[in-house]
């Protein structure tokens, strides 16, 4: 949302700069079991975004004061590698990564059956290797695949997709330019089997109709992404 409202990012035929239509997703690739030492892991490439998620646990929660007697603790750490962006990022956690870690944790807590592992901890490490736009969506989606790979019981997977507004037109799955110079961004976390919502953020302004359009784009995209996740987890082929 850089506010450069006069940057033209969609042509008269509704084609975007990277040749996609308004409702099209970027290419997605998912691979599981990429970190041998972890209990579960996933590598996800979404356009030029790339994330590696590793899951450790359930294990004994340390220090003991963080243990919950009736459920496990989900510890989510989202981090962007210093080389993931065009300008080198200062390594380590910042306010943005803390915020994303928190919303990811909240979204995952609603599906993971934490009550089955009292006094334990499940560690989710999300490492963004390459960032374009929508890394929180990639991180959350990849985290749910990695949790399933680790054999952690969950009621559903979580698919996260974002839609936004560029040049007053609602489009699905924003790329970097659209994210920077667009007018709004609406990332959502969706449970694909029930259509329930576990995460929603909105940056910028959308009218009611635009919101509805973005919602529909996200719901449609979620079912497409879910199919890809399914293939990755069941050992099928194709993207």
């Amino acid at each position, binding site marked *: 949302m850089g506010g450069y409202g006069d940057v033209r990012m969609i042509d008269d035929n509704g084609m975007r700069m990277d040749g996609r239509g308004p409702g099209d997703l970027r290419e997605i690739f998912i691979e599981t079991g990429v970190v041998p030492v972890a209990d579960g892991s996933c590598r996800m490439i979404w356009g030029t975004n790339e994330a590696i998620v590793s899951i450790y646990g359930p294990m004994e929660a340390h220090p003991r004061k963080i243990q919950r007697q009736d459920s496990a603790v989900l510890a989510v750490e989202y981090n962007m590698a210093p080389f993931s962006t065009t300008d080198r990022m200062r390594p380590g956690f910042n306010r943005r990564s803390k915020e994303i870690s928190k919303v990811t944790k909240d979204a995952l807590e609603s599906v993971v059956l934490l009550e089955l592992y009292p006094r334990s901890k499940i560690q989710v490490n999300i490492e963004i290797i390459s960032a374009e736009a929508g890394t929180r969506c990639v991180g959350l989606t990849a985290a749910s695949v990695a949790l*399933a790979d680790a054999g952690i019981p969950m009621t559903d997977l979580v698919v996260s997709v974002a839609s936004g507004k560029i040049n007053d037109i609602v489009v699905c799955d924003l790329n970097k330019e659209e994210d920077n110079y667009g007018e709004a961004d609406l990332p959502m976390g969706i449970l694909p089997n029930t259509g329930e919502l576990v995460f929603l953020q909105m940056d910028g302004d959308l009218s009611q109709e635009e919101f509805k359009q973005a919602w529909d784009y996200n719901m449609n995209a979620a079912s497409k992404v879910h199919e890809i996740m399914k293939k990755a987890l069941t050992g099928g082929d194709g993207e």
Partner: protein
Amino acid sequence: MSMSKSADAPHRLETKLGIVIPGDDLGEINDKLAGHGVLEINGRFTAVKRGILSEKEKVVSVEPIHSKYTPRPSDLVIGYIEGCTNNIWFVDIGAPFNAILPMSLGPSKAEFGGARSVIDIGEAIICRVQEVEETHSSVVSMKGMGLRKINSGIVEQLPPHLIGRIIGKGGKSLSKLKSNSECRIVVADNGRIWVDGDISGISKVRYTISNLANENFGGEN
């Protein structure tokens, strides 16, 4: 979703049609029961783990493809001693929580205060899970046939869900491996394998184990 009945061969790709992932609808309950990895949600069965769907005696369950070892009573496990007090050893059995081995269930020569002189920290033991609490803490015992401290050979680690590959149908693969290598092999339920014998035999077994471990389930799209 088609149902696989071959729950005794959960690691083979031929039952691929029966692989389910969390959130998959497994149909109506009727007179069936929910087993491992299955939950009743809104009157229907839902898978909560990634694994192979099976139905045995009206119990619908999901055999996880990959999961951390969860101790169950009477499991044979190989553990490493992580710590001890005057009369208790704490044993790492590869589960989320360390198991405890009370002196009363340990080797008979152990005396109060002399735990470390009998089994020291870092040493490996073959033991059996006696009981598991709801909070997943467990108690192990060394009272029984073949339960002992490991003084020789090596301990290999394999993901617990792959031990079926070593054992084979009816223990065929394991007995073949034993006769080929002339080694004593104990496969524990927590994925640890004790191999004892001469060096050439041990390296033969290690090679076979690493080959089996690398025959990965194709989790890639």
